[in-house]
């Protein structure tokens, strides 16, 4: 179980980092989303992985730490709000700047612009 879990977190993180480093705002937003999924899983595992145990200290003999679950819940809510804002801003940047490059001016356009003037 630990191995699968760790692999999941690792793959999600690497995909997230790769996409975040791309040039268009859409990939960056998707990358950030993947990254936040990976982080949520990681945070969940910080209370140790346990099977068949309740997060309540009751009469159960086996129980798991409830705190990471509360932390993950908070992190999910915050991450959701932040992603929503990033999407809206990306759309606005697309409308304001006329392209979806993260810098607002794609490198291809800069190179091709002087050529047009020359011709």
């Amino acid at each position, binding site marked *: 179980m630990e191995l699968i879990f760790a692999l999941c977190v690792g793959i999600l993180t690497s995909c997230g980092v790769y996409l975040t480093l791309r040039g268009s*705002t859409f990939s960056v937003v998707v990358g950030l989303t993947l990254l936040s999924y990976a982080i949520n899983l990681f945070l969940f595992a910080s209370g140790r992985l346990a099977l068949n145990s309740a997060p309540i200290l009751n009469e159960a003999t086996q129980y798991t730490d409830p705190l990471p679950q509360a932390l993950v819940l908070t992190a999910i809510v915050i991450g959701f709000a932040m992603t929503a*804002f990033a999407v809206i801003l990306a759309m606005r940047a697309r409308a304001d700047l006329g392209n979806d490059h993260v810098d607002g001016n794609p490198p291809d356009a800069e190179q091709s612009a002087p050529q047009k003037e020359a011709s």
Partner: protein
Amino acid sequence: MNHLPILPILIPSLAGILMLLPPIADRLAIQRYLSWFSLALLLGLCFQLVFQVDTETQIYLLGGWQPPFGILLLADRLSVTLVTLTVFLAFCASLYGSAHEETTGRFFYPLFMFQVMGINGAFLTGDIFNLFVFFEILLIASYALLVHGGGKEKTKASFHYITLNLLGSAFFLVALGTIYGTMGTLNMADLSAKVSLLQPESVAIAKAGALLLLLVFGLKSAMLPLQFWLTKTYSAAAAPVAALFAIMTKVGLYSIYRVFGGIFGDNGGELANIATPWIWPLAIATLVFGMLGALAAPSLRLLTSNIVVMSVGTLLLTFVMNEGQSLSAGLYYLVHSTVAAAALFLLADQISVQRGNAQDRFVVSRPMQQAGMIGALYFISAIAVIGLPPLSGFVAKALVLQSAQIASEQIWVWSAVLISSLLALIAFSRAGTSLFWHLSGSKPGTEKAKPVQLVAIILLLLVTPMWTVFAGPITGYMHRAADDITHSNQLILQVISDQEAIDHDSH
């Protein structure tokens, strides 16, 4: 229980929510007066709190839940000083914003209130996960404030800012997960006790978590390799927003003080002072980089942004030099530099409005309508920022230089601080010359500063002479505030152990 410590979070949050409710949501005038009133009220309460915590540190248990499981607010001298500074800045910035910026977009005042709530919460909280939550509150308000008013520059700057900060939040959570996984607590005081009891096999993991936190706080406070977002963001933001943002880098610095001074400080066992070898070179590099940026800046706003970077470098230096004993000088400098930078951001906006198309760039332009008034204010704030006598910048830099007592450190600190002051002097003289004296001879424009804008700038600049006049009592207070980093942790640990004793008796 004394409820004063929670009011700096509660008042702005309630005022912000009130402003979003239907009868007030469409009436700008009511929002304006409500925000002035609540910030002025809060400022009064903060002053009361400043004197109250000097006699007794306030530990506020939210909902009465006992630490380390419940969340607590810690109002000691250090946090209350910064909260008061935030509220004061916010008051001046909202005064300034009422002249023009309130109409350039919707929800200016509510966003302002939520921003103040987030910053105050980050300063007051005693729980490291709660610190994350307040960071997110202040960030999401700052995202919206940054694009307030619209325009290409703002949109461009804010996409970078948001992406970087979302990545920063991701690293923050990884660090928190690692620290919780190894130490089993998130209460800062409890962490400071647990860190020396770490099992040998988990020391390396905890160290990784701690250094990840340094990365996150370095990003927020604009420490060298992570400061590239700052100049662009601050110079693109609307003036009152930029003035309020001047405190945001200090939130990162404050977190560094609390985490690397309080938790991983001298009593950190194997992890004692782990951040110090990293902060040393980075602090000096930040200072040098800010200095070069200030020399190269083509406009007053960019110059001021680079001055903010320089002040971050100096503040990081005071945290690590002299084995952490010079922090009180740093705190004195912190308040002075924040207020001076905020005043300069507001002045840059005035200059940019009155010079027409030339804006605040250092080029030849038409004269300003109120050149005398604006020039005098610029002169005062430049003297304060550079550190010339008689204003507080001089006292602050003298204190910083004086507190570098170890010979091997002296050479670095003295040369970095003194050369940066000299170059700041050059940069500001050049800027002033081209802004006020390089004129094209045509008639001045008709734009004039509104009285409320001048009042906001003058209020901010009044702090500088006050800070010089009361330097004695203030340095004493800052000295006790610097000691609070470890002292307050012990007080909270006392509360925890008292509670454990009560629990033990009742069983």
